[in-house]
């Protein structure tokens, strides 16, 4: 049997499997020429995580994989995401995808590729701090603000927009964004991190709006925070100085517990890692 026929048969079988699983096809998103990743016959709970190459995103992939979920793990440069690749090797249900969340065309292409795959939990984890030195009053670097906003605020809403049909087609139907207690306007006491903080307030507002919009469609939207965690996000020399800094596995386990806890009744809330509700 030639390999072409073999490939055709595989595609047909996969397509049939997709249909028999009655998932149907999620919106083509105007990209019919993009080859779809076909959904394996056995339905699986699926999570898509952005910024999954390191830190909390990597830990999300690890912990959801330990639950036997299907993982779509994205990062900007998969070729250098050694730990993620290692985690994915030998796991046929972990898909590593290149994605810069600020590249909206790439987001749309990825959504088209996975148009046959329902996504139970979309985890908007990718985020940047912008560098403290770029956001000092008197020396504010305004071009950095655009980047911080593009990643932290626009990225999550664009992802939600591109993947909304995938989420609606799933069982759990959750859109979760990693925010920060630094985005709480009510808790500001020391002036700093203008860009980072305002991007988190902005994303909080976007997600609060989205929660209101999607509630009647049965989609739960939530904001979670990890607390101060020992990842690359915090420069090494600073980590040592933070008392009781949290480890990524604990911080992620806490966020996952809060994501599990989210229901349509609590949709739109801003959960601190300990399960308390943060003020806006």
């Amino acid at each position: 049997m030639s390999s072409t026929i073999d490939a055709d048969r595989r595609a047909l079988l996969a397509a049939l499997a997709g249909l028999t699983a009655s998932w149907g096809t999620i919106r083509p998103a105007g990209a019919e020429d993009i080859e779809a990743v076909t959904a394996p016959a056995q339905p699986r709970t699926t999570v898509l995580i952005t910024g999954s190459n390191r830190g909390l995103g990597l830990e999300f992939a690890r912990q959801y994989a330990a639950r036997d979920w299907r993982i779509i793990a994205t990062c900007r440069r998969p070729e250098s995401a050694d730990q993620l690749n290692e985690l994915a090797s030998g796991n046929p249900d972990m898909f590593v995808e290149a994605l810069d969340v600020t590249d909206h065309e790439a987001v749309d292409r990825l959504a088209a590729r996975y148009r046959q795959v329902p996504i139970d939990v979309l985890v908007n984890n990718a985020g940047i701090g912008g560098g403290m030195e770029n956001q000092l009053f008197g020396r504010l670097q305004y071009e950095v603000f655009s980047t911080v906003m593009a990643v932290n605020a626009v990225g999550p809403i664009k992802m939600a927009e591109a993947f909304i049909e995938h989420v609606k087609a799933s069982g759990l139907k959750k859109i979760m964004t990693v925010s920060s207690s630094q985005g709480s306007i009510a808790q500001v006491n020391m002036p700093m991190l203008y860009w980072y903080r305002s991007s988190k307030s902005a994303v909080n507002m976007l997600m609060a709006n989205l929660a209101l919009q999607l509630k009647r469609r049965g989609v739960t939207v939530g904001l979670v925070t990890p607390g101060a965690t020992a990842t690359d996000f915090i420069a090494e020399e600073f980590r040592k100085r933070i008392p009781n800094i949290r480890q990524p596995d604990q911080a992620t386990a806490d966020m996952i517990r809060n994501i599990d806890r989210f229901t349509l009744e609590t949709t739109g809330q801003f959960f601190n890692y300990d399960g308390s509700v943060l003020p806006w």
Partner: protein
Amino acid sequence: MSSLTNAVSALWLAAVLALISVFGGAAVSPVRAAAHTGPQILDQQEVPVLQESLGEDYVPTVLITGSNRGIGLEFARQYLERGWSVIATARRPDAAEALNALAEKYPDRLAIEQLDVTDHARVDALAAKYADRPIDVLLNNAGIGGGSQNQVFAQKMDYAVFEEVLRVNAVAPLKITEAFWKQVAASRDKKIITVSSSQGSIERATRPSLYFYRSSKAALNMVMRNLAELLKRREIIVGLVNPGPTDTDFMAGLPKSMLRPTPDAVADMLRNIDGLTLETTGSFLQYDGSIIPW
């Protein structure tokens, strides 16, 4: 973006720096060398002595952005009626007919300046032009809505519009503050006020709409809360005021019965601006004087 510092580490650092400043900053040089914080930069700045007199002949000055129409124009009118000096900015002064008419009535006290608040070089140039002028109230009024049709989730989200809305509504007030704070610090009243919106209250969001506009106001509120804390030490009062739904071009399309007359909206905001003190700095004030939750 390699050496990203997390917020919490920065919080810790800021706390340390605050302690250093309290204890005179004698030692702990490694920390001081490692960190550049806003407060530190601010503390290095000298505020020029610009007031010649605080006597009865003192004429306070307000600088108002977006002053060609609507609320901005009415702010100019009411401050002029009070006897203040007004620096009124607009993107296109040539086309600002009502403002120009006002300038004929008050030739000595109204100066009209061209300014697009997203043009940072122009902001800096204007600040340089008025370097010797105390500014009692810096009034960030210019704002845009972005068009409700451009911010409908899963139908049409025009992200280029979002960027523009953020630049005008959230970034510009910060840039203008950064450019003019010394003139404010050198004035009598020392107030930096920004027109926000109750639409920027996350707590009060009950219906999904205006994703970009709301998000820009939430971002703005965060920026101003930070500035309130920062500028307190220079005795500058920072505030956010809300006009309520007002009968201006901004709200075109809404039934008049839902809208408040512009003179009332501005009079309410003026009363709230007058009432702000260092004790209430950073407040988000509804037009009736109540506090809007974040």
